[in-house]
């Protein structure tokens, strides 16, 4: 594996007395898809939010592209190429589809390049192009997820972090979503994917981490984890995947 793009060391996140993430060390390399798996409340969202700067870690370090971003704000992380597609999509429903996409590029100076990237997103997702001037509320769940991914793409990320993107989508859309993630990865984007859809996540990922009560309890090549009996017992069996 080449040198890691993202690297965390002993990351801790606490909310008052809740210790949501405990000493998590993980890496994501150039062009990799890495999955983070775990049950409800395992600390997956807290981990991603700490990586994007939405919560301050109470301990540990975060490095991205060779820079220490532990104390950096979200803006600096976005500028250096990290983008989070948050849990529940979090698109702006009072804005139009087009305005939502513009929000992904608000830190970029060259607005004509932003418009060009938006055009590329419209080509990728024709459904969004058709509704570009409508309020984002009119979109279906699947389209909203496409918009959330599109919005993140306008930020020109090097690493895209997705928090349970398949949640609440129809099986057809889930298929589409996973092939989209592979497609983006093929274009050079590194992916950190949080999922409860363990089977599919392990299929597209090269490596994976399993979180339990905030701690990494298992990690390794996705293929090995898919065959691991403990994981199968803990998650694959329990989840109607």
């Amino acid at each position, binding site marked *: 594996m080449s040198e890691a793009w993202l690297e965390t060391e002993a990351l801790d996140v606490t909310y008052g007395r809740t210790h949501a993430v405990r000493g998590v060390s993980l890496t994501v390399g150039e062009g990799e898809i890495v999955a983070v798996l775990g049950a409800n409340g395992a600390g997956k969202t807290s981990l991603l*939010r700490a990586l*994007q*700067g*939405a919560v301050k870690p109470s301990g540990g370090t975060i490095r991205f592209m060779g820079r220490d971003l532990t104390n950096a*704000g*979200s*803006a*600096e*992380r*976005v*500028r250096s190429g990290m983008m*989070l597609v*948050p849990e529940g999509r*979090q*698109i*702006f*429903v*009072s*804005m139009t589809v087009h*305005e939502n996409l*513009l*929000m*992904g590029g*608000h*830190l970029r100076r060259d607005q004509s390049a932003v418009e060009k990237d938006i055009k590329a997103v419209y080509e990728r997702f024709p459904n969004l192009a058709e509704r570009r001037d409508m309020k984002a509320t009119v979109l279906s769940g699947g389209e909203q997820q496409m918009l959330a991914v599109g*919005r993140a793409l306008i*930020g020109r990320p090097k690493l895209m972090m997705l928090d349970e993107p398949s949640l609440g989508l129809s099986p057809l859309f889930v298929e589409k979503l996973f092939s989209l993630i592979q497609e983006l990865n093929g274009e050079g984007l590194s992916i950190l994917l949080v999922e409860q859809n363990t089977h599919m996540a392990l299929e597209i990922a090269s490596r994976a981490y399993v979180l339990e009560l905030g701690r990494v309890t298992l990690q390794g090549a996705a293929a090995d984890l898919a065959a691991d009996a403990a994981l199968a017992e803990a998650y694959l069996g329990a989840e109607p995947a």
Partner: protein
Amino acid sequence: MLLLQQIANGLMLGSVYVTVAVAFTLTISILNFLNFTIPTLFMLAGMVGWSLAFWGLPFGISGPLPWPLALAGGVVVAIVASLIVERFTFRYLKTRYGDSTEHAIPLVSSLGFLLILENLVRIEHGSDAQRFPGPSADLTLSLAGIHLRVPQVVSLAVVVLLVLGLVWMMKSSRIGRMLRAIAENPDAAGILGIETRRVVPVVFMLTGMLCGLAGALFAVNYGEVSPQMGEDIGSKAIAGMVVGGLGSLWGAVAGGVIIGLIEMMTIHWAGADTVQATVWGALLITLLIRPQGLFGHHAIGKGKL
């Protein structure tokens, strides 16, 4: 003819209310709180403008300034004061923007600033009303028998341009989108790298500017300022905002104009003593018939600009 003249006067008065109501609306729809310092900023601009025009810069730096310069100084002071309020109501108290449980903090601390600023002005200048040495009131324009004072016409044009500019800014500019994003979902905005702490002062700057200009227009048109001038304007602007619909910019515009018209009509036909009754009566009727106001949404609060 008399009616038309009253309508013209009402529009002038209404434009002052509109400007203040728009300032209230901006803070409510973006930051979700009622900024009590708004009437004080209005008063501050008027009083500082008067003091610069009457006495000049402090410490004998200069003698009385020409009135336009003095008013510009008043507007600048209102903007600076508004930014100071932001610094101490929002940042110092570590308010989390958009957190509905913490409205009380900015609300109460802005009330504190109202008292501090108003009393500072009283200590400095006393509570008497002062005559503002503005442009001559004789400058009038007669149009089909209606007499319009030139400063009033200019004021009206300034307010119209201001509101149009503001609407354009919120709708189409980058900063407007950022403000709307914070208003709707501060968390998602933060994840995309919008730095609330750098964007929110813009709201306070605009608030200071709107209130400052309203104070300046008031001084010019009515020729009189006092430390109490904010109280009446503040409550009328809030009445206008509620009539127009809380959280809507066009609502604030319509409501401000309506209150101005009601006030002028009442003064003319029933006397000044009746104004409180008709203005608050209009407010009550609105709340009974159409609680969300003319342009309002059913849900008050976030992302409704």
